[in-house]
């Protein structure tokens, strides 16, 4: 790696590492997996750094790597239940503090199928357009919209139930 590549890459990493870790955590719901995905994504980005800087937004490039690696890992692990896995590690939703409704929504989000969850994160966390989400997932805009609609329906049903089960209907509908 030449000096200029090292300098620009290091500056980018120091500046955006926190945001990338946060993105990966929102996507995976797991701190360790998030760190591993970011490390992997940045290593691959460094190897292609001159091309990445010339052709694309580096952060978008790393995000795309994180998403594709995460979805591939999810396909391979297949039957792993993220909520049970998280519960075993003690990674529950208690950090939301008093916001029980938020905790229920976060739990519901973790129950979504990986692709639906990814679409939700890219749209509501990364604020990407349907076209940009479709580019990352290599699918049609229509498919993205269908996934969003299905995910929102699932989230409303699951988180609504969870809240209604613990508290009252008023908490959910406010």
């Amino acid at each position, binding site marked *: *790696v030449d000096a200029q590549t090292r300098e620009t890459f290091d500056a980018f*990493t120091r500046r955006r*590492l926190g945001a990338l870790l946060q993105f990966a955590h929102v996507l995976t719901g797991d701190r360790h997996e998030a760190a591993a995905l970011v*490390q992997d994504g940045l290593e691959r980005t460094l190897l292609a750094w001159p091309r990445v800087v010339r052709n694309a937004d580096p952060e978008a490039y790393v995000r795309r790597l994180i998403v594709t690696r995460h979805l591939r890992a999810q396909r391979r692990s297949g039957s792993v239940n993220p909520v049970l896995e998280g519960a075993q590690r003690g990674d529950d939703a208690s950090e939301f503090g008093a916001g029980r409704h938020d905790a229920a*929504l976060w739990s519901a989000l973790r129950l979504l199928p990986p692709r639906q969850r990814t679409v939700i994160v890219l749209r509501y966390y990364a604020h990407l357009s349907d076209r940009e989400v479709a580019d990352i997932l290599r699918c049609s805009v229509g498919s993205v919209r269908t996934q969003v609609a299905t995910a*929102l329906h699932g989230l409303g049903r699951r988180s609504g139930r969870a809240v209604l089960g613990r508290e009252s209907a008023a908490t959910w509908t406010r």
Partner: protein
Amino acid sequence: MTDDEERLEADLRRVLGHPRHALPARGVTVEGIHLGARRRRRARLTAALGALLAVAVLVGSALALAGSRDVPPRSPVPEDRPSVGGSPGALPQTPARAAYGAGTGL
């Protein structure tokens, strides 16, 4: 979009942007990334060299095999082959051949 959906979307934005998702960057360091990238580059180089070697071995074997096929096996030529018509390749004269020769002036 209904009010419920709008509320759900606003809740989602809030939950996803919650500070709990901000992770300390202890696990990932710039030096660690450079180390990992170096390891990756070495692994890629080794894999490429391995593939090149495999191709070279394959091509070499194929060439050696083709070379051994090009040399015709030494077969004994029958010394006492009967020749008709004077030349070694001449065919025996048959009535039909004789008639054809007479018709064309050969």
